[in-house]
């Protein structure tokens, strides 16, 4: 899945340039800019080539890999969407990722908020368990996960996959939001309490909106991770009608053997990557925004 790694690199490139942009040293800035330009080229050129190739016939791709398409083959997309089943896989992926994302963001935010801002016995223990979950390789969990899902009748179902995704993404979400909620000013929370808000209202109407920049960045990371997830669905979601995009692309490429329809394959790749880019661009704007804009200094 070259395209998958490609879009990851693409999306992290602007994030890095923001960091180096704040540095004052001109030499460091110019060196890092040169490196970033090189990196951008390395990332963008193959992606452009994929897009270009998605409009060509297989014969054209094999004969002249770098030429412009003779005829813009939009039927590649139609073919990939219907015949290769990308449409169905796309829908499955959207359902699974959207549900998992909503659940994990809600649970993760609530969990991180409580761990970060309330003192109670076992607080540290729970936090360290979450951290342990972050370090635990998912490969080791595959077999037990398979049996757990099979025994609970959730194997090869979308809810089963959603549940697994939530569990998979929760430690990172909690870990990231924990430090974010810790950094939020206490007095705004106290002001909410004095204004008559209970704990729930203080969380949902004051603290959660203030954590929006953090929520947005975690949501992006989670979206990328879950959208590109391959291992978990391959092991736990083997029914072809419930394939997600990554599985669909893999089977598309492998089933055809030597007679791969490269044009349609590249069209499928483009359709897989585009939502990631769109989501990133939308959320990236929300990342900007100060936490402490309401308080002085």
């Amino acid at each position: 899945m070259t395209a998958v790694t490609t879009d990851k690199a693409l999306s992290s490139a602007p994030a890095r340039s923001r960091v180096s942009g704040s540095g004052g040293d001109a030499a460091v800035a110019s060196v890092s800019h040169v490196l970033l330009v090189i990196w951008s080229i390395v990332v963008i050129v193959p992606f452009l080539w994929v897009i270009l190739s998605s409009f060509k016939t297989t014969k054209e791709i094999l004969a002249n890999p770098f030429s412009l398409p003779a005829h813009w083959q939009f039927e590649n997309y139609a073919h990939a969407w219907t015949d290769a089943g990308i449409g169905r896989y796309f829908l499955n992926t959207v359902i699974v990722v959207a549900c998992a994302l909503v659940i994990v963001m809600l649970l993760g935010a609530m969990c991180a908020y409580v761990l970060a801002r309330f003192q109670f016995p076992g607080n540290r223990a729970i936090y360290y368990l979450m951290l342990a979950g972050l370090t635990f390789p998912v490969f080791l969990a595959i077999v037990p996960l398979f049996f757990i899902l099979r025994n609970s009748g959730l194997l090869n179902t979308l809810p089963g996959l959603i549940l697994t995704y939530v569990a998979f993404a929760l430690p990172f979400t909690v870990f990231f939001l924990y430090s974010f909620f810790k950094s939020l000013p206490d007095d705004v929370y106290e002001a909410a309490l004095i204004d008559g808000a209970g704990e729930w209202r203080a969380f949902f109407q004051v603290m959660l909106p203030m954590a929006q920049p953090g929520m947005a960045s975690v949501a992006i990371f989670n979206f990328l991770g879950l959208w590109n997830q391959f291992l978990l669905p391959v092991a736990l979601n083997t029914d072809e009608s419930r394939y997600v995009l990554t599985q669909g692309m893999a089977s598309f490429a492998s089933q055809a053997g030597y007679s791969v329809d490269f044009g349609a394959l590249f069209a499928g790749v483009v359709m897989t990557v585009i939502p990631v880019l769109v989501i990133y661009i939308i959320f990236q704007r929300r990342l900007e925004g100060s936490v402490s804009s309401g308080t002085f200094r």
Partner: protein
Amino acid sequence: MATVTYDNASRIYPGSNIAAVDSLNLDVADGEFLVLVGPSGSGKSTALRMLAGLEEVNSGNIFIGERNVTDVPPKDRDIAMVFQNYALYPHMTVAENMGFALRIAGVPKEERNQRVREAAKMLDLEPYLDRKPKALSGGQRQRVAMGRAIVRSPQVFLMDEPLSNLDAKLRVQTRTQIASLTRRLGVTTVYVTHDQTEALTMGDRIAVLKDGVLQQVGTPRELYADPKNVFVAGFIGSPAMNLFTADVTEGGVKFGTAVIPVERDTLGSATQVTIGVRPEDVVVSLTESTGLKVEVDLVEELGADGYLYGHSEVDGKRTDIVARVDGRIHPNAGDTVYITPKTGHVHVFSVETGERLGGAVVD
């Protein structure tokens, strides 16, 4: 409108043996503006937060009106608080910030908007109602924080150093605005500050705290004219009162070569006392006379007045002395002057306890 009563209220932070607020007893009358003042770490903010319900009360009780609120959560206390950093909700507009409490209380939208507009009018915030806090200046944010408190018409206003983030000029302006506003609204106000000038200018009464212990409560004049102990004497007034130890002699207390008449029975058996004289209560003489001999280090000119900073040998120790002098005609650095206190303006305190020795001063 309500009274506020601290009844032996104490707060001990977890993991500490020392009380941040130690058995505080304090009554605030209905509609009164009370200032809690003290240096940092004196427990003044903790005392306020106990009243707000943001800090647990470990022993004793706190009453708002007749109601014991010691274990009542903040949301049910019917109080409003202005924070040092204003603590505005960054994601809400000015109007939403001010109306948040009313929205929670279930006040209908019409009435809510009307009350927000009234408060905004009072504070000159009307043009900014649709802005977010980050688009406001420091002074405007401060007024929004005030507005948020006013809109609710609570029983008590709590203010935790609300002026400390404003620049000097705005601070003086806002100081008078807040004082007149709260008096006009007639709401009981507890105001915390470390700035004794703020305390003196704003408070109906002032409570001075040190290390969690209440030192003295009284009107600004009482505190200034009649400080109960050395700490209050040194804390209230700017520049601070001159305080030094002096020997007791026949007929009074030694002040340099002069003797201040003090009645023998108030001094008891003490051989030394701490005496205090405010900078404006000394007479400075350039010609050699009786009194305390002072080397002038610096004279600060403030226009009408000047402050003379010098040092003297008292009891074998170098002691810094401040005296108010005329702004135009005054001694210069390097001069030697002789100072004597004006009669009736000498404060005498015990060396051991720091307590004021009652009625010590003879005119």
